[in-house]
């Protein structure tokens, strides 16, 4: 590991001031950052440890029925917060389908939003990677890219954002609270991550030194609690990143869909909300036919970036699955295999 400064600020203001120095990085649980540093992928000159910054670890109910989640709240603490899980079950399910219990016990909200892609060429300093080094080229383009993006990618970068947590968050209209030298600002999560375009090294709208202090879900997001699911396809039953994943939240009125919230994971450089597909469902009767139309709309623009054409059809199918499960109603308890196709689904007829 390279030599770096380590500072442990005592307030948000101190943290932001400390991180103003170029080459700084915030350290949350370090489950991603420290791996990247050990691999020589990131070499920050200064680590600004958020461990002692007060006010970042609360889960607060908001007057509008929403919730404000501090940036340092642990993934497990959030998922197991009964009030939170009841109001935002798909978010809890997504959190619990991520990584392993040990990682979830450490990983934080802010770190999860800002975790880097799992593109293997990004992690390998000997490979060309535009994200790691602007202008270097992209070895994934002609390489091992089975699991790369099918939406929103560019010739410069075909990587995906690997977060599960962000998928239901973006569907539910989460807002990111950001603190910088110039003060506080807010950005909808949907606009927080950037598509690669010609600058894949810039992954979010954060300016250097800006700090995520919290993520907010609006009160109306709890309106989907009765019909909200997350489904994640993996290459083993647990402890694997999504091949593709999907979330669906439905508000049903008189047996019809009043409002739908849909997003896909593992398909693009950001959690991929699909307003086109949501629009298809507005007013529709829940059912296989409507769900498939929504899925077609969601993937209309998709194209393979390599050996991954299968992900397009898979994404359609998993969206249909998420919708089918959501329409059947959020289960009383989260399944023991959260978000898994192998979790039992009593009372739902999935496969004809």
């Amino acid at each position, binding site marked *: *590991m*390279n*030599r770096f400064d380590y500072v442990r600020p005592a307030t948000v203001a101190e943290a932001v001031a400390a991180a103003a120095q170029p080459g700084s990085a915030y350290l949350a649980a370090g489950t991603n950052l420290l791996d990247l540093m*050990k691999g*020589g992928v990131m070499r920050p000159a200064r680590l600004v440890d958020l461990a002692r910054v007060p006010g970042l670890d609360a889960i607060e109910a908001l007057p509008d029925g929403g919730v404000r989640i501090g940036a340092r709240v642990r993934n497990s603490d959030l998922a197991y917060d009964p009030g939170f899980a009841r109001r935002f079950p798909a978010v809890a399910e997504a959190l619990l389908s991520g990584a*392993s219990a040990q990682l979830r016990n450490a990983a934080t909200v802010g770190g999860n939003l800002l975790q880097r892609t*799992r593109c*293997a*060429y990004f992690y*390998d*300093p*000997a*490979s060309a990677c535009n994200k790691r080094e602007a202008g270097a080229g992209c*070895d994934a383009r*002609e*390489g*091992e890219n*089975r699991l790369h993006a099918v939406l929103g990618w560019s010739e410069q970068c075909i990587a995906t954002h690997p977060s599960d947590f962000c998928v239901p968050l973006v569907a539910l209209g989460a807002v990111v609270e950001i603190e910088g030298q110039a003060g506080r600002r807010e950005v909808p999560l949907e606009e927080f991550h950037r598509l690669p375009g010609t600058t894949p090294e810039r992954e979010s709208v954060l300016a250097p030194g800006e700090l995520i202090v919290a993520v907010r879900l609006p009160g109306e997001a709890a309106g989907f609690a009765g019909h909200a699911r997350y489904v994640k*396809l*993996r*290459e*083993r*039953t*647990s*402890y*694997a990143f999504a*091949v593709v994943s999907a979330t669906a939240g439905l508000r049903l009125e008189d047996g019809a869909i009043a409002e739908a919230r849909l997003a896909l994971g593992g398909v693009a450089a950001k959690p991929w909300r699909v307003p086109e597909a949501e629009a298809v469902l507005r007013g529709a009767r829940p059912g296989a036919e409507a769900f498939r139309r929504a899925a077609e709309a969601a993937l209309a623009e998709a194209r393979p970036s390599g050996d991954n054409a*299968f992900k397009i*059809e*898979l994404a359609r*199918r*998993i969206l*249909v*699955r998420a919708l089918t499960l959501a329409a059947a109603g959020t289960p009383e308890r989260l399944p023991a*295999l959260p978000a*898994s*196709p*192998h979790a*039992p*689904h*009593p009372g*739902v*007829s*999935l*496969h*004809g």
Partner: protein
Amino acid sequence: MAELASSAAHVRHGSSIGQPLTRRDGQLKVTGGARYAADNHPPGMLHAALAVSSVARGRVTGLDLEAARAHPGVVAVMTPENRPALAQDPNDKSGPFVFRMELLQDDTVRYVGQPVAVVIAETLEAATEGAALLAPRYAAEPVSTGLEDGEAFVPPAVGVGAPAEVRHGDVEAGLAAAARRVEAVYETPAQYHNAMEPHAVVAAWEGDRLSIDTPSQGLVMAVGRVAGLFGIPPENVEIRSPFLGGGFGSKGAISGPQVLGILAAKLVGRPVKLVLKRDQMYGPVGHRAPTRQTLRLGVDGEGALTALHHHVRTASSRYDDFFEPSGSVSHTLYASPAIATTSDAVRLDSGTPIFMRAPGEASGSIALEGAIDEMAAACGMDPLEFRLRNYAEVEPTSGKPFSSKALRECYAQGAERFGWSGRPLAPRQMRDEDGLLVGWGVGTATFPALMMHGQARAVLRRDGSGLVETGAHDMGQGAWTAFAQIAADSLALPIDQLEFRAGHSGLPDAGIAGGSAHTATAGMAIHGAGADVIARLAELAMTDQRSPLFGAGNAGVVAREGRLVRRDDESRGESYAEILARAGLDEIEGRGTGAMDQAAQEHYAMHAHGAVFAEVKVDPELGQIRATRLVGAFAAGRIINPRLVRSQYYGGMIWGVSFALHEAAVVDRRTGRVMNANLGEYHVPVNADVPSLEAILVDEVDPHVNALGIKGVGEIGITGSAGAVANAVWHATGVRVRRFPIAIEELLGQP
């Protein structure tokens, strides 16, 4: 020597052998008291880190030595320029167990991950950063990375000296005459051992004496290799290896990086510790080679095989030889008048492949079991019935009878326990209550009953206790316990009266912990050493007029619970302690040897067998697979400790799931780099992937393999299991996937 705590009191009925004792080292391990190689920190110790190549072929043209040396804490940088001299060329090859090593002999690069320099520093962090600062520059050459790259050739031998071609009968005639034929190509990927404990060495020199802590599956072999390389007498090398955090074959021969740690200690004149990082285990410490196997089968109108041809394309490295012997399973498993196994290979710019748990059998079994299943389906026969139809009563290629073979019982007990009967013949017929596709598959397990060469020493002491020593290796499988059980019985002592020592190169050579032969080999040596002591003690007593055993000569004596008694009257006898006291001896010693019985070997084919039944569930739209139930029934001769043996079977069966569904090195074909060289993305099963496992120990008495009747259990569990899982996927989905691990996209065709 490590202190072994005895575990909680157990009820012992009769002999120790056969008792399901828990691991004697279990307590040490769960409390962190077991000292693994890297836990040793001799005074003055420095840390070494490897700088490894990122190209697969070429030369190192530059290293930024200045930057590395200038880094605070760095003591030395070892390169080909200053590496201490060796007495042997690391490229010399003196036998099939000796592998060429990269010990900084020159600037050549042979594979990605090859060590190109070693940085030695006061701290691990400084060494690691120093290694990064070297930033090697290369003159790279074009690389071969796939089984289709380059000219294929027929290797002189496969595995350890086995013929590359075996022919029995006329396969082409058998195929021509067949009522039905199946031809199928199966592909298996490169796999890496990924033992939990990385290869590690702590080396300290004192003059020309060398003391090493390092995990080893073959202590005496390692001593020989190290002594040869450094030009010192073997007795000057001491290796301590009380515990291994897994080996699976990758710690059989000492590896290049371990020797580099020893060289580093020599260079700086202080003890040095070198531990591989996880990603550094994907190159210099071996792997299972990829294969492409073509199976051609013919059957007559009754479903009896008329011909079986198993062709294996595999790969070795460009600079050394190890050819995965995948055809071996076809020599023994199914009866056929004509059987041929053939091999060819290409050379790749990778590290040299090596033995990996069930080398050859694992990769060969999944292909053979798949093809057999395809033929059963083609014949419209139940796959178990088809296997029984083609049951080998004698070993098909050699014609020898089996020393024992309870495979029929394995099939029967496994099928009964699994509930095989009633399985629909056609695929895609079963669903669970959630609508998931359900499939059942079967596979036959087989592994040869081998023996190496091993020795042991046994001692009876005046206080009546015993000591047994052998340089055996506990890779985590429970050898400390199983050997102590055999030792206790060999001396007719309760196990708590017995001290057992192993894991040290100064002890008698126990052979290699490999080939599933360790229990039989070292066990027989222990058995012999115990018998030798008892015989000497009996001699003392029977020739001493003051002993109640005097004159028992013709009737003979037997050892029982620390006493010798007359065989014809067990009420007459005396304790070991009394005999030794009267003779004025503090202790009495015996020696034993374990080795293959050549005569028996000539007359009998010796193999362990098993039958594995698997259930998988597959999501019909999404293709995600989960193995939900595995039942294995295995017959492997005498079972020394059923608890430990069951664990070996479980571990093997889980590896079978891994082989079929999860495990593969993703190699970039342009560069030869393994792109998933970490345990996050090199997938092996997690708990959720293996919900229900059962291993049945089928009784089998084998009077021929060795006096104890022990076959091996360490590797057989993978064979059969991998095929059973893959066959179950076919039965669930109707899709025959012949490329492993089975990928989601292969199953998406038909929702």
